[in-house]
């Protein structure tokens, strides 16, 4: 089971800033281990965000995104108490969803 994300969603007027920290190795597949063997690629491929169950963001990621990635985006029309859910899926098919309440 992958480690949980940290999600913060702060509303200011019409706009809500969502900050997401994901815990992921993000291996490029280009590095080698001390024995000289290639470390297999392992990275997040798809990120989606939902506001009260309605998709507001989808992103396709690749191996150039850093380890433990940080994502920030602004969503319009969210109010305090609304639910923001973020899901990622990596190239191994592992997935993780976490939810935060807009404050």
């Amino acid at each position, binding site marked *: 089971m992958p*480690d*949980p994300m*940290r999600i913060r969603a702060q509303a200011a007027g019409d706009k809500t800033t969502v*900050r997401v*920290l994901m*815990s992921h190795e*993000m291996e490029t597949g280009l590095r080698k281990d001390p024995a000289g063997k290639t470390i297999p690629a392992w990275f997040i491929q798809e990120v989606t965000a939902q506001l009260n169950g309605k998709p507001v963001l989808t992103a396709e990621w690749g191996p150039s995104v*850093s*380890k*433990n990635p*940080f*994502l*920030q*985006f*602004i969503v319009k029309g969210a109010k305090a108490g609304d639910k923001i859910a973020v899901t990622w899926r990596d190239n191994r098919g592992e997935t993780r969803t976490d939810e935060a309440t807009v404050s």
Partner: protein
Amino acid sequence: MRSRLIAFAAIAASATATVPLVAQTPPQPKSAADGIAEYRKMLEDGNPAELFEAKGEDLWKTARGPKNATLEACDLGLGPGVVKGAWAQLPRYFPDTKKVQDLESRLLSCMQSLQGFDAAEIAATPFDKGEQATVTALAAWISSLSRGMKMALPQKHPEEKRAYELGKRAFFYRGGPMDFSCASCHGEAGKRIRLQDLPDLTKNPGDGVGFAAWPAYRVSSGEMWSMQRRLNDCFRQQRFPYPGFASDATIALGVYMGVNAKGAESIAPAIKR
């Protein structure tokens, strides 16, 4: 991501716009330190150290080890189970082990006495592997509960005073193939390695600098580093043999730096390049 790009664009635009206005007096070039400060500021909001804090809190409260116990009875110096503020007063003398201990060595003691782990085995484990990763995550969480507090290491006990003097000697001790001491780089203000400013650790280097900034997340390597690991790397850069994880010499250096930093505000766990 997008808002960052916009921020960059805005900076670039304003820079070109202001140049003609101050053509008489050339604008102060942005120093490397300003650039790094700006970079840290942008990363502050998303410090991945938070992921380690969450992990550490979990590990503290989870029953683990051969004795299947939590660490909640661990005394970090302010009484069993008291975590808030403990980090700002470490390293300190502990009567039960009769030793001056820093956070990491104290955690080893607790993991041995409460959970039944073998402290010597953990100390010999490479960083980020096995229970070493546990110690790092715990250190991240424990230090986060002292964020914003001022460093206040006790110096009442004779052993604490002895550790300070020992640490001072270790700090100024020159050796290794390059004849370096800690003081070669950290003994006066205004020094740097490459673009990194080096704090003067013989006195209080300021809030959130030096001892008051570790543990920290290293963006370049994507790793969480405790003070012990920071010291390990200092020794490596000096081409000096590492005295060992949680060894007396590293703890004494911690006491020396921590006591010197008295009154400095802690920002640990910080974020580093």
